[in-house]
């Protein structure tokens, strides 16, 4: 095999196949929004703005989510060439280089996957979050000078330190946003409609939690290779579509758990993946299966594990915004450690794969502390894989195989030692 060859993901869930339809429909909606007179707004993921958009019948688009699509379709090298020719350093986050390359390159190519992204009427630039996301939106502001711009502030505060001041500030930013949207689009926000949207969002979160709980079963009914289901949490939270789809996933996963149907015949090692997947090579999740390893859990999924109270929708959305993104950023390492340790306990993890992600310093910083805590507190070994979630040039399959194989052998020896 070519050392850097992309390996195809092996999916076991029927509902994963159905996901293709959900994704296509979402992007079709994005592209048809323009002709239907629905304003399109580009925004960062993992905040409460998405529910506001759906409640006001506006179309949200997530450039960050478009990057994995580009990676899956093999379009990233082309986009990287465009942005690197503009002077963007290869040391910058791959999401940034990809999306900036895309908007300055193939955005007008209607043959791109799902018809491509519609140009934004509105840009919701975040203050706060990570620097690359902020800089992506600054570049988009420059690229789309006709778009109306809202710059929203967000306290960069660790979850354990969130207090009423932070919540009040985010709520005031939300109200400012509603005013902006009403003014920019001529649409008004109906509070009952917002409550319904938040209720749907909460249902999606509850379903998400339930789905994740079945992964504690031995054998695990599905693995990280199916994490594409997260798509609905990123792009469709607050819609009936997300709830319906997740209900389907839940039913299937529940049945598999009841039947004791695992991902592979002999699940011997349960693994945890830290950091973002390699979007251009999702098959890596299956790589460990040959040695009896199943990727049972990952950092990402915890970001959606929150509940929202529809009776106070602005507060619910503010809390969602404050709670979601620190889970995968550098804002709070103690919370991340706690989360990984808890996941390792809940999911009965034998070993952890730490993806040292060249494209994401925020998530990578602190991994060594997590590694130490895993060893000290739970005696769980981990291995570091050097790679990049977007840029295949920063990944060597040969090096990955060497490390992964050695790690799996070590886990096997450990198990044998324990048994004897």
């Amino acid at each position: 095999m070519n050392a850097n060859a992309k390996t195809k993901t092996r999916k076991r869930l029927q509902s994963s196949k159905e996901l293709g339809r959900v994704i296509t429909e979402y992007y079709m909606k994005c592209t048809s929004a323009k002709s239907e007179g629905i304003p399109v707004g580009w925004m960062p993921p993992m905040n409460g703005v998405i529910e506001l958009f759906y409640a006001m019948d506006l179309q949200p688009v997530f450039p960050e989510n478009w990057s994995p699509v580009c990676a899956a379709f093999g379009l990233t090298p082309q986009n990287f060439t465009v942005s690197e020719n503009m002077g963007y350093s290869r040391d910058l986050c791959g999401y940034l280089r990809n999306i900036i390359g895309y908007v300055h390159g193939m955005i007008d190519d209607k043959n791109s996957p799902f018809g491509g992204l519609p140009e934004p009427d509105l840009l919701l630039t975040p203050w706060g979050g990570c620097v690359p996301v902020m800089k992506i939106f600054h570049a988009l502001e420059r690229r789309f000078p006709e778009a109306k711009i809202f710059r929203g502030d967000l306290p960069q505060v660790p979850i354990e330190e969130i207090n009423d001041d932070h919540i009040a500030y985010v709520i005031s930013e939300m109200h400012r946003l509603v005013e902006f949207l009403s003014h920019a689009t001529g649409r008004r926000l109906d509070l009952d409609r917002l409550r319904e949207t938040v209720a749907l969002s909460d249902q999606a979160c509850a379903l998400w939690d339930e789905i994740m709980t079945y992964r504690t079963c031995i054998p695990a009914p599905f693995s990280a290779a199916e994490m594409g289901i997260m798509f609905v949490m990123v792009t469709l939270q607050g819609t009936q579509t997300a709830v319906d789809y997740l209900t389907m996933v839940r039913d299937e996963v529940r049945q598999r758990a009841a039947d004791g149907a695992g991902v592979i015949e002999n699940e011997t090692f349960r693994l945890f993946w830290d950091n973002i997947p390699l979007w251009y090579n999702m098959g890596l999740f299956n790589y460990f299966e040959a040695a009896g390893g199943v990727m049972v859990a990952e950092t990402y999924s915890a970001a959606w594990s929150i509940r929202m109270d529809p009776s106070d929708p602005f507060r619910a959305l503010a809390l969602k915004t404050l709670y979601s993104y620190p889970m995968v950023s550098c804002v709070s390492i103690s919370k991340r450690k706690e989360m990984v340790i808890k996941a390792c306990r809940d999911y009965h993890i034998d070993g952890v794969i730490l993806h040292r992600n060249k494209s994401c310093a925020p998530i990578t910083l602190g991994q060594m502390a997590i590694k130490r805590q895993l060893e000290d507190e739970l005696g769980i070994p981990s291995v570091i894989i050097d790679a990049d979630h977007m840029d295949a040039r920063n990944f060597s399959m040969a090096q990955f195989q060497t490390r992964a194989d050695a790690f799996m052998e070590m886990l096997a020896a450990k198990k044998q030692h324990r048994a004897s």
Partner: protein
Amino acid sequence: MSSHQIQSFADALKQSADHFHGLQQSGRKMIGYFCTYTPIEIIHAAGFIPVRLRGGPGTVEKAYSHVPDFICPYLKRCMENATDGRYDFLSGLVQGYTCDAACGVVNIFGDVVDLELIHAVPLPYADGEAARRYFHGVITTLADKLNAMDGRFSNEALQRSIALYEKIYGIIDQLYQQRLDGDLSIDAGDLQTIMDAGDVLTPEDYLRMLETLKKPPSEHGPQAIDGCPVIISGSLIESSVIFNLIASAGGRVVADDLCTGWRRAYPDYGHSEDPVDRLFYRHCTRRPCPSRSLAVDRSRVLTDLAARSGAKGVVFMVQKFCTPHLADYPILSDELKAHGLPSLLLEIDETWQTGEQLNNRLESFFDMIAASTAEKLS
């Protein structure tokens, strides 16, 4: 300004380790920070000495047990120093939220240095009334944390601390203004030495030393006017080596947009009666850093500086892997070009080894500017 005066700042830098330990032994507590967005006036008002952590040149080895190699050399060196026990004089670390790397390092700093307080301050990005109210809450939280470690924060103390820093920044700003007007008798390297000394002295001592600089007459007269006039922009330059390199390659720094330079020396706190409002005013109006602002806003600052100083180009001297600066560069270079200002991007690593290649690139850049100036004149 005499070379003797500059030497006293250079000496302070050289003797910093002893100085910190002396302060520690006398019972003073020191709080470290990385970025100039940290509200050091609050730290000072609580009775502590704010110390900007210096990375310094060198290698990185032990720090890799804590951080990946793809964060900026400055932070890697700070982590290396921490693992070497060089920050053992610190009682705390407080960091105004700026870039992901700095705040990520804040999160893990406690693994290598035993500190009473580690806190990242979630500063607002917006201005306006809601942001002002939020800022008050943020400052109260910080003051409470400092008081919990035997601090004595009060609004009156804050008034005094602001007055002290206002004087410090006022004198420094004056030096930078003089340089803009071509009226400064020292070169960019010496000016940097004066700035750097502020990292290792108590503000009271630093002010005393700065005040001696105000005394005329200047020994050497205004700055020599040979060399291609340029602005230097970037995050941190912790050594005069870089400035000397620019000079030897045929350049002359006439203004800077550096975190260790003019960007931090912003003297205007506004006129409110409320000291926290004064801090908020400075926070909102200060010269922008890329981790908290738009590239287009910075390009306005740079073109304005060029107009005032007569700079013919901009040298971006950026710490390798520094996301905020690298992400701004394409937009900045584009905008500057539209204003007739060429730019050059150079990256520095932890060794500060400037090397022949860097020198060649600088020389070509200055030659190119000289050729295009000559063409315009002919």
